[in-house]
């Protein structure tokens, strides 16, 4: 695939992520913070988000496996996940977190377990899509092109 085709593919892919609600305006904000002095900013923040989320999802799984569930603890983890997903524009993850917190407040175990499953699913979707997008960007850069805005 030639450079122009790659660039077009990237733009289309990125647009679809916004249309499908995987990303929102906040992600655009992050891109605008990237410049020649900080060329890898988006990848760095997103990688941090991945690390942090995986840790939180593990903590959530453990917390919900307990005999006697500490809903305050579960809520604290969801709050963190909601915060970081919101900050990078991972809208669908953020939305599940909002529902998740409501179930925590109600101390609804089933609801929480369902949300955990949903949030894992949404997280893995957005992770895959962002990684594909970064790969496309890398291909463009390697071909000597620049990332279209």
């Amino acid at each position, binding site marked *: 695939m030639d450079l122009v085709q790659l660039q077009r593919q990237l733009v289309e892919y990125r647009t679809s992520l916004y249309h499908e609600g995987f990303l929102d305006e*906040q992600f655009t*904000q*992050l891109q*605008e*913070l990237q*410049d020649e002095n*900080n060329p890898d*900013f988006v990848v*760095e*923040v997103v990688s*941090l*988000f991945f690390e*942090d989320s995986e840790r939180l999802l593990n903590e959530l799984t453990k917390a919900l496996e307990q005999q006697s569930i500490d809903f305050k603890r579960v809520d*604290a983890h969801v*709050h*963190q996940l*909601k*915060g*970081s997903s*919101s*900050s*990078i524009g991972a809208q669908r993850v953020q939305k599940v977190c909002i529902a998740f917190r409501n179930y925590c407040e109600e101390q609804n175990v089933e609801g929480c377990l369902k949300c955990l499953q949903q949030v894992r699913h949404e997280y893995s979707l957005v992770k895959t899509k962002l990684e594909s997008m970064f790969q496309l960007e890398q291909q463009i850069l390697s071909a000597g092109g620049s990332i279209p805005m």
Partner: protein
Amino acid sequence: MAAQGRHGGQESNKMTALVVDDNTVNRMIHHRLLDNLGIENVAVVNGKEAVDIHCSGKTFDLILMDMDMPVMNGIEATRQLREMGIRSMIAGVSTRSMEREIREFIEAGLDDYQEKPLTMSKLISIVHKING
């Protein structure tokens, strides 16, 4: 926006900020936002660390204070900093919860409040309040 501080002015003229947030992703983003405006910044992870850093003698032109944090939250930290006589601009940055909580946060001594996530334009409006 003007690249404030990037031209290499004297250290003492550079604006300084303290980021108080327990979330690693947010700390990274706030750091970048401030860096972009040429504002020297430091981050701590909860309200107690924010109070401690002031006890050690440091002061900042701007404090970006998150609300929900372990050990000591933003409301309590803001209260304590004001009690200590800290006059810096304190901007509360938090996700929208109940009106009552936001009011309590503001009444603890905030100069400004912005809903998360923080964007460049929100930060600029905060900074303008310091300068203007």
